[in-house]
């Protein structure tokens, strides 16, 4: 804990209304449990893990793609291989060991992913928009994403819900969700799967067929906001909830400790 964390909260800091990017971080944090081992990504996933660890999940184990295990970074991360992830970690594994012994061997419970397209079954495209051999947009590619999607118990997808981001089928499956449904995934020999999709409009989950539905709406969003930007007729939960708002403590952590420079969250309306 740095001295910043114990500073008295100034009223202005948490009295400002929360933003949807802050709500996304908090909603993701609440998905995590204290005995989870999480493969953490940079940006909102890292913020979410750190919020969870400092609130309800103190034993959360954070593992990074770069092979650092039990990292305890003291400053906001600039990249997945930040020196602050290595200094003070419990262990540092060569890249191969991280994928081989940790991810593939099923030692990680939760992974965070984003993507340019997410479809009805939670399949993710982060490779190309358009044709693979003649792309309209060449995206970065899988990185660790495909095997994270294969091997963790619960994949969390964090992404803004913009136009064209939720087509019925992705242009290219980079990372498998429920493929053609929960049975399709099981036939490939894969356990686990996507657990939640957290956007700036709501929190979505997957039904018994492995199809996306809206579980809670953020206070500022409407059903139509979501449906109008979704490429198929999306289901809403019968008991559709409102996403719980961030607490003052959660906002304080994001604004004062974890992302004071607003690298990964907008903190003003």
């Amino acid at each position, binding site marked *: 804990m740095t001295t910043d964390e114990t500073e008295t909260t100034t009223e202005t800091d948490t009295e400002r209304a929360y933003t949807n990017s802050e709500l996304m971080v908090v909603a993701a944090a609440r998905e995590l449990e204290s005995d989870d081992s999480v493969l953490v990504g940079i940006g909102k996933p890292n913020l979410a893990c750190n919020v969870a660890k400092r609130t309800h999940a103190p034993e959360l184990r954070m593992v990074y793609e770069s092979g650092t295990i039990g990292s305890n970074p003291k400053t906001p991360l600039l990249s997945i*291989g930040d020196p602050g992830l290595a200094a003070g970690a419990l262990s540092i594994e060569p890249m191969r060991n991280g994928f081989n012994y940790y991810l593939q061997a099923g030692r990680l419970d939760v992974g965070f992913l984003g993507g340019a397209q997410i479809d009805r079954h939670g399949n993710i495209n982060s490779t190309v928009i358009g044709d693979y051999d003649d792309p309209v947009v060449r995206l970065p590619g899988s990185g660790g994403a*495909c095997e994270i999607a294969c091997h963790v118990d619960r994949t969390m997808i964090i992404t803004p819900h913009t136009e064209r981001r939720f087509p019925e089928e992705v242009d290219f499956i980079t990372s498998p969700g429920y493929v053609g449904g929960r049975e399709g995934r099981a036939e490939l020999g894969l356990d686990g799967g996507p657990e939640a999709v957290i956007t700036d409009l709501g929190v979505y989950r997957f039904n018994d067929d492995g199809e996306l539905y809206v579980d809670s709406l953020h206070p500022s969003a409407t059903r139509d906001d979501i449906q109008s930007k979704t490429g198929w007729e999306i289901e809403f939960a019968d008991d559709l909830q409102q996403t719980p708002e961030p607490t003052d403590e959660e906002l304080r952590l994001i604004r004062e400790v974890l992302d004071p420079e607003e690298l990964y969250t907008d903190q003003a309306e």
Partner: protein
Amino acid sequence: MSKVTSMHDAVATAVDDGDSLYLAGFTHLIPFAAGHEIIRQGRTDLELIRATPDLIYDQLIAAGCARKVTFSWAGNPGVGSLPAFRRAAEDGYPTEIELEEYTHFGMIAALEAGASNLPFMPLRGFIGSDLPEHNDNIARVESPFDDDYVYAVAPIEPDVAVIRAQRADEDGNAHLWGIQGEVKLAALAADTVILSVEEQCSEETIRSDPNRTVITADEVDHVVVEPYGSHPSYAQGYYGRDNEAYLSWAETAADRETVEEWLDEWVYGVDDRREYVEQLGTERILDLEPETAYATPVNMGEYR
């Protein structure tokens, strides 16, 4: 026998037009200085292999050195995309580039096969993904013992690998601490290895802590002593990442002309890494310096 030389001479000797090249280092200890020297020497038709092409391959692509990129994640880490890579992949500018694409795990497994002299390496990867349809070096293999299956990747064996470490002796026995990435595998998989370090040390220093050794002299062809040779990436315990450089690359590289200006100023406009560091200036370098935090000692014992 000392292998210490300049990066100029190491690149002139080791890297030919058309070579396949792996500049190693997962975010940590990226061989930027080596990449710049390759640009200065005007190498062309290179196959650039790297899990994370990062800024250094974007610069090589922008300078027209590449014919092919073999990779698993082509982005600007923590920032966004690689503009020069995208221009080449989408528009064929300044050169057409062929892409050979993996996942991180697949890429590392292919290097592992190369380092191990194995015809393939199995992994539980690519499952449910469309990637195997687009890469002939990925194939499904059945288990000989049960109904299970895996994917296999063919070996990757670069002509040249450039790796960096914090310290090495003059023969090329090297200590690396912090994030290890794929550095060892790249060196073992490659035919020729250029090792660049922050500091030269004695053989005794290496022998005092053999568990810290990432590669031994037998695998190393050239040793280059180049402080700050990884800027704007970082060297654990020596300097941190210069995030300003990563952020500004997004703008610099967005435009064909500004990227040319950048290359003129920071690559063609300096003779070597020493001049590059001088141009960075003392203040920028000092701002990247971490506080000191030594590892708790271990006693290896002296057995007579």
